[in-house]
């Protein structure tokens, strides 16, 4: 198992570094811009909070963009949510199918290891990648706060990053399930799933009747403005997230261990 885990990790590490450095650096740059925008913030904050549905969708009606917490939630929160979920989706939507797509399956599955163990190893490798991704981006954001010497509530920041990690796990599980069903890499479909979940959350915040169903999507419990505004996240959102993850994993194992592998 450890040998395969190491192998899988090596296969993913380049993408992991590219994505985590890009998202982390982008977030840090956003944070650094906060200082230069402080003077205009009061005016901006006022106008942004009065933009109706747009303000609701991006959480600017909840938090003032003039504070570092509000600025981080509405700017960096979106960058991190989209960037990290896209990374999770790309990685997971090809994790199983890449063996058939790249014709390496006959090498891998001729080794004395069951498909169940291969799935477990690949999932462990992805979880590890998401831990490293979250750690690197967190380090970048903390560096950004240090540069501008302005700090948000770090407890809320930690809750936000952990919620994002959980959200990425959920996107990963859904996209891994997709990967178990297909024989060709479907990065587009994976990205589509991540974006669809994001748009579902945006729509839910704009359409009044849809607000009650926000908890179904993973972005529901990981929304930066909700977390930094100290609003209670309904426990149903977490329960729903865990259930979706479990269900996706069970389906992945059931499907992939019984599937005919393409040559």
């Amino acid at each position, binding site marked *: 198992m450890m*040998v395969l885990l190491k192998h899988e990790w090596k*296969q993913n590490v380049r993408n992991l570094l590219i994505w985590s450095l890009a998202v982390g650096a982008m977030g840090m740059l956003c944070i650094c811009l906060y200082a230069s925008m402080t003077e205009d913030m009061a005016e901006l904050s006022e106008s942004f909070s009065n933009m109706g549905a747009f303000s609701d969708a991006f959480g600017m009606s909840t938090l003032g963009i003039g504070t570092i917490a509000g600025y981080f939630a509405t700017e960096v929160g979106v960058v991190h949510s989209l960037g990290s979920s896209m990374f999770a989706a790309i990685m997971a939507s090809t994790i199983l199918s890449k063996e058939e797509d790249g*014709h*390496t399956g006959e*090498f891998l599955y*001729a080794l*004395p290891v069951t498909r169940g163990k291969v799935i477990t190893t690949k999932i462990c490798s992805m979880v590890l990648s998401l831990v490293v991704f979250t750690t690197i981006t967190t380090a970048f954001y903390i560096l950004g706060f240090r540069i501008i010497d302005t700090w948000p509530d770090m407890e809320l920041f930690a809750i936000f990053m952990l919620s994002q990690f959980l959200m990425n796990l959920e996107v990963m599980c859904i996209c891994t399930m997709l990967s178990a069903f297909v024989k060709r890499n479907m990065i587009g479909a994976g990205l589509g799933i991540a974006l669809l979940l994001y748009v579902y959350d945006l729509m839910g915040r704009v359409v009044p009747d849809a607000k009650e169903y926000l908890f179904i999507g993973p972005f529901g419990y990981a929304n930066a403005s909700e977390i930094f505004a100290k609003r209670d996240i309904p426990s149903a959102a977490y329960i729903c997230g865990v259930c979706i993850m479990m269900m996706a994993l069970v389906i992945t194992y059931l499907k992939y261990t019984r599937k*005919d592998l393409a*040559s």
Partner: protein
Amino acid sequence: MIEKAIEINHLTKHYGKHRGVEDVSFSVEAGDIFGFLGPNGAGKSTTIRSMLGFLQYEGEIRILGMDARKDHERILREVGYMPSEAMFYPSMRVRDVIRLSAEVRGMDCKREAKMLCDRLRVDVDRKINELSLGNRKKVSIVCAMQHKPNLFIFDEPTSGLDPLMQNTFFELIAEYVKGGTTCMLSTHVLSEVKKYCNHVAIMKEGQLVSAGSVSELTHTSSKRVTGTIDGQQVDYLYTKDMNQLLEELHGKNVTDLNIMDPSIDEIFMGYYSKDADREGAMR
């Protein structure tokens, strides 16, 4: 000591509505070199991929006395498989692929791997994406042989290999088989079967056409007749009694005549051909 290295009983595999293989049964003796013949789409790869657990199937497959479904992992420990495509992770170096294959088995195969790389002239420092098909095949041979398995399964092993390497490959097989390994090789090259295999199974359209010893299957009363008769060049396969041939030639102007055994290609093509019955075309 296991007598049968491979036992396949009533193997059936369908891909949706399409036929894969239908009710295939044959066995391979331990220590044998077994040829697996058939045209493209005959079901050879489907049979091999079922044996290795890549496909779900109906019927029973036993490898080295173990059930292919229940003892999948244990079987793969004892098997060295070389796929026809020989694809690896493109960004890896040859050395890393060979090491990965050994480490997953929890074995130290350095000495055997070095011997194989030396004999097959494998450059372990090169990246996989720089290799030609022939060189990837050589890496695949090393991965299949380095752990000294009890059973080799090779799917079209010599395609892409130069004649010198083909020779080395069969020398290696002979050495391992001498040490007790069984070898099953799927191939299109009929001369390889005649030269190296003891037994052979022939597949056609998803069904087993014939199985037996190479000498049995290549034994035929048919003769190839070439020559010049009544001023015309003739070249045909004669399947009837030889006395009847002499009667047919009686009274004709025979200026040149050769009567010889058909080539192995011709014999096996008879099994492959559409109108061949299950007993063999030229018997």
